[in-house]
Every structure is written in C-alpha cells, then in structure tokens.
C-alpha cells in the first residue's frame, strides 16, 4: 500500500526521472539526532513540476539537498533509495556525485543575495558552470553559451552584463543569473529551493513565470520547494505536503486544492487569505511543529489536529490511497474511522 502509488505514472507511459523510496536523513548534532527527513517516498516524471509544501523546518530543503548530497558533513542518509533515471545514487561518493551535479540535476537556492560569489563576474560564474561538464569546449563557444543562457533567463544586453559583478544586480536579476547557472549543464531535474521567498512580490511573479516558461520550453522536471500555496497553484502539476520530515499528502494540484484529505492540508489551505475573503479572521493551525530531535510517538501532527483519533497518538498512519495519484497519511481514511466533513475543499461527499 505504501509504495504502490509510486509506480502508477510509470504504467501510464510517462518517463520517471526521479524516484525516492523511504528516504530518511538525520543530522547528528551535539544534542542528539535530528530526524530532518523521515521515510519519504515520491517520484518525479519527465517534464513535471512537483511542489513540496510545508512549514519552515519541515525538511523540504533538506530533502532536495540530500538528493544532491549537498548537506553538511554531520548529515547522513540513514535509509532509503534515490533512483535517478533508474540509477541508484544514495550510496554514491563525492566524486561520482560531482559528475551528476549540474548535468543530471541542479539547484536554485533561496537567497540570490548570497548564492553568488561576490568577487567574480556573473559571466565567469555562468561560464564555470558551462565548462564543468563540457571541458573540451572552446573559449568562444563557452562565451556564446553564456550569452544564450543569459538571454534564456531574460537578461537583456547579455554581452555587457556578463562583465558585471553580482552586486550590480537586483535580487530578481541575481536569481535569473542563478537560474542560468543551474541550467548551464542542461540538467534533467531542477531543484528550486524557495527561489522566490527572498524576493518582493512583483519580482516573485516574474521569476515564477520565467521558471514556468523555461520549464515548459526545456521540459526540465522540477521539484519546487515552497511554503507558499499561492505559488503552488501557479506553477505545479503535483503537490507533496510535508510535515515534520514526512510527506503527509501527495496528489495532483486539483486533488490537493479541491479534495484535500489530510487535516494538515486542510489547515494549510484554510490559512490562505484568499479562502477567507470576507470573513473576520484568518484561521491558523494551533500550536508549533514538533521538534525533530525527539519526534513524538504516533502521528507527529496529532497534538495540533482537531480531528485526531486515539490511534493517532499511538501509531503512525500509513499512506492511504485516495485515487491512483492521490495518497494521504491520516487514519481518517481508514475504513473504521468516523466520517468527518472536511472544513475546506470542493468535494465534500467523502469518496
């Protein structure tokens, strides 16, 4: 039951780029083991955008960085498989990972103000990414490619701006540069780790449109990490909702927005201002996320969950199937559970 939903898309004839099975990642700190990612499974098909949504600290970024093995030394993949195009890479060392980074998958980071080297021209930084996997490329060709990439991400007068330093650019422009760097090696998978969080709202929209446009043009499979559900509706094909290091619900955008099944997803959706338009107050989820240093017994969300059942405090719920593409980890979906009416969502008949 737990893994069956992974292979559905494959049967439908779509090419599976990335498949993560039962991945657990922990940080070993002085205080103890912090279980940042706990038993996460999902898959990503070619040309698809998967949004990973959740509160700060729920393990979204760690999930991406652990797939690219960009975590600090005290982080370890404890368990699980990472299959990229069917190739198991969880056990790869630094040398083999380096060959994959940039070429197979690439990453855009949250803060464009800090993710570029301040003392190197942007052109040189893009060129470095171009050359990383095409060592025999001539100088002229590299320059040509850099210009192309800069044009691709919508930077005008690329020839002149190549010679500029990052501090000459605004946040939005820097994020475009970072995107150009990420795309330099024609990666099949792009991890976008909250790429618009550090930008102001109008620029956010521009960068999102750009991401979507490029993603359509190049067909890059994308994992889009965000805490902003408004962004998700705009960009994603499928959504994975994460809570306390676990994926609690995964499905297509329509399924998550119109037929959410997990109480945590209900809470998230209810806290979007647009859903509460005309009402006096904006509902929020009470309490705080649990510490990942000592995750509670049973369902980690139980203590904040108004719909919690007794079993939630005892045993972690498995992934229940809703449809072939929609799964949620809540005991409410067990056939023995009492029927509750979701506070949100279009489809309320409980099927």
């Amino acid at each position, binding site marked *: 039951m737990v893994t069956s939903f992974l292979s559905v898309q494959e049967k439908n004839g779509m090419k599976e780029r990335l498949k993560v099975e039962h991945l657990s990642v922990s940080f070993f700190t002085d205080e103890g083991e912090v279980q940042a990612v706990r038993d996460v499974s999902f898959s990503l098909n070619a040309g698809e955008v998967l949004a990973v949504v959740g509160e700060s600290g729920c393990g979204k970024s760690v999930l991406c960085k652990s797939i690219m093995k960009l975590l600090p030394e005290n982080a370890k993949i404890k368990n699980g498989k990472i299959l990229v195009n069917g190739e198991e890479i969880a056990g790869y060392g630094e040398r083999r990972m380096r060959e994959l*980074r940039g070429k197979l998958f690439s990453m855009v980071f949250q803060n464009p103000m*800090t993710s570029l080297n301040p003392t*190197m021209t942007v052109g040189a930084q893009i060129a470095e990414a171009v050359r*990383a996997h095409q060592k025999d490329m001539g100088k002229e060709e590299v320059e040509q490619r850099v210009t192309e990439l800069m044009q691709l991400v919508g930077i005008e007068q690329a020839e002149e701006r190549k010679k500029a330093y990052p501090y000459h650019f605004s946040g939005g422009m820097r994020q475009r540069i970072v995107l150009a760097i990420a795309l*330099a090696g024609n990666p099949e998978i792009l991890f976008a780790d909250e790429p618009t969080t550090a930008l102001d709202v109008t620029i956010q929209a521009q960068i999102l449109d750009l991401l979507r446009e490029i993603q359509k043009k190049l067909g890059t499979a994308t994992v889009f990490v965000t805490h902003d559900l408004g962004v998700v509706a705009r960009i994603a094909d499928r959504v994975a909702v994460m809570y306390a290091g676990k994926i609690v619900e995964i499905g297509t955008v329509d399924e998550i927005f119109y037929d959410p099944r997990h109480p945590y997803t209900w809470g998230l959706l209810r806290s979007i201002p647009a859903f509460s338009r005309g009402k006096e107050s904006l509902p929020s989820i009470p309490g705080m996320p649990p510490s990942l240093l000592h995750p509670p017994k049973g369902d980690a969300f139980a203590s904040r969950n108004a719909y919690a059942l007794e079993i939630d405090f005892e045993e972690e719920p498995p992934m229940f199937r809703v449809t072939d593409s929609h799964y949620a980890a809540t005991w409410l979906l067990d056939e023995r559970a009492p029927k509750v009416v979701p506070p949100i969502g279009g489809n309320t008949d409980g099927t």
Partner: protein
Amino acid sequence: MKSRNKVLYYGKKAVAFLASVLLLSVLVFYISRLAPGDPLVSYYGDRVEKMTPEERAWAEEKLGLKDPISVQYIRWAGNALHGDFGISYKYKMDVTRVIEGRIGNTLVLGGIGFLLIFTLALLLGILCAWKEDTWLDRIICKVGTITGCIPEFWLSLLLILVFSMQLKWLPSSGAYSVGKQADFSDRVCHLILPMTVVVLSHLWYYAYMIRNKILDEVREEYVLLARAKGLKRKTVLFRHCLRNTIPSYLGIMAISVPHVLGGTYIVETVFSYPGIGTLAYESARYKDYNLLMLLCLMSGIVVILCNMAAQIINERIDPRMREKEAAETSEVMML
C-alpha cells in the same frame, strides 16, 4: 575627472602620512628625553663620573642637551629635513652610517622570515581548512596554539641551550664567525636559530587566521551553488574561497609587518645578532638620542606605510570597495 580623483585620493593619504610621522617624531623625542638616565655616559663613558660640574655643563652644551626640549626638537627637525640626523653618542659617527652597517642583517632576518611566515602560514592554513576537523587539523591546531604562545626570548634561550650548548650544532650568537664575514654558509648557520624563532613565534597566528577565513568562505551559500554546478571541491576551494580570502590576507600581511619587525628586534637582542633591533635596544638603554630617533622614525614609517599599503591593497582587489571609493571621492569632488 578620474585622474583628479586619484590625485585627491593619494593626496589625502600623503597628508595623513606626513601628519603621523610628525606626531611620531615629537612623541619619541619627548619621551626619550623624559626617561631617566645620563646621555653623557654613552659619549664619554666612565669619565663622566670624574667630571667637574663645569666640564659637565660644557659637554652638555656641546651635545646640545642644555636647551629646553622644544628648542632641541626644532633644531633636530631642521637638521633632519636637510638630511643631517646627528651623530651617535656611542659610535661617534653619523647615525645614518651606523645604521647602514646594520640594516642589511635585519633585512635578511626579517625579510626572509616574513616571506617564510606567510608562505608557510598560507600552506598550513589551506591544509587545515581542507582537512577541517580531521585528526590532522586538530593536531596542527593544538601544536600551533602551543608554539604560538611561547614567548620569543624563552624559545630563543631554549634553542640556544639545546642546539648550541648541548649539541653544539649551531652558533649561539652573532651574524658570522670572527674573520668569516664573507663566508655564505657560515652566515646561513648563524641565521638558522634566530630565523626559526621569528618564524615559529608568528607562523600559527597567521595560519590559523587563514584557516578560519577560508572556512568562513566555505560556509557561504555561493559555495553550495558552486558545488551544485558540479565543480570539484578543490576547484571551489582554490578558485572561489581562496580568491576571496587573498585580499584580506594581503591586508593582514601588510599590517603584520610591525609585529614581525618587533619580533625580529627581540630575537636579535637575545642572539646578539648585529641588526637594527640590537641597535635600537642599545640606543634606548644608553640614551643615544639621535640614533634612537632615527631608528624609531624608520620603524614608524615602515609601520605607517604598511598600514596604508594594506588599505590600498584591499580597496584595489575587492571590486565593491573599488567602486565605493570612486563614488565617495566623486561625492567629495561635487562638494
């Protein structure tokens, strides 16, 4: 416009330099004369004790020590501006000639020591940063901290005791053996111990600084992006991190000249190495005012110039500083 900016920029630096030198000379002049002691002793030796008050007065008059300090200073400064720094009471010849004979030794010890310190510190710093938190890094850090804490004079004495007294491998003092002034290998032998002390006592401080500066850079987010591009760890370290560390390292190098110089002076004194350091020590001890003045001024000028060089280097290398400075000077121009 741009060249005028430059003139203004260097003009300001030159004014600051001259003001510092002037202030330094006044301070050294007054302080050296306020210290207790009899300058006549260094000129006349033991005879001073048998002098009558008249003879003393005559001698003081002759050496120009009778006038108020301010008058003495103005006379000294006037002569100094004409290139006449007076005579050394002890050596009874022009102070410039006394220094001429010694400065080469100090330059060899301090200069080579300085280059060694910074090359080794850079290599050691990179090694430790590369091997961060491994047993190698930890051992080097611990040993380094210990050697860095040992005072120079104590380490000198220890080395003399072991290598000169016990093992009799190396000479304990001087710059050359009697009569072997031109013998290269003999000079090298005399340099080994003092050089070891100069290098060891400063090495770790700078190596540790480099290590931590590199590690600061390694923690920056751009390193993550550089690695996500598919660059090797080595490439990221050398092309990105080290490159961003070098400007501040050059700055530190320039600022550290006085420290290394000071260290060299102490080491010279312990090893009776005939350089500027021993000379400065003697001149302060025996109230050889003119010699002391010139030595202090020289050291002071080196320090000031090095600090300015550090500032200029940093501004030249970091593109952000470069433009900020251009913007600032043009603002000044607009006012």
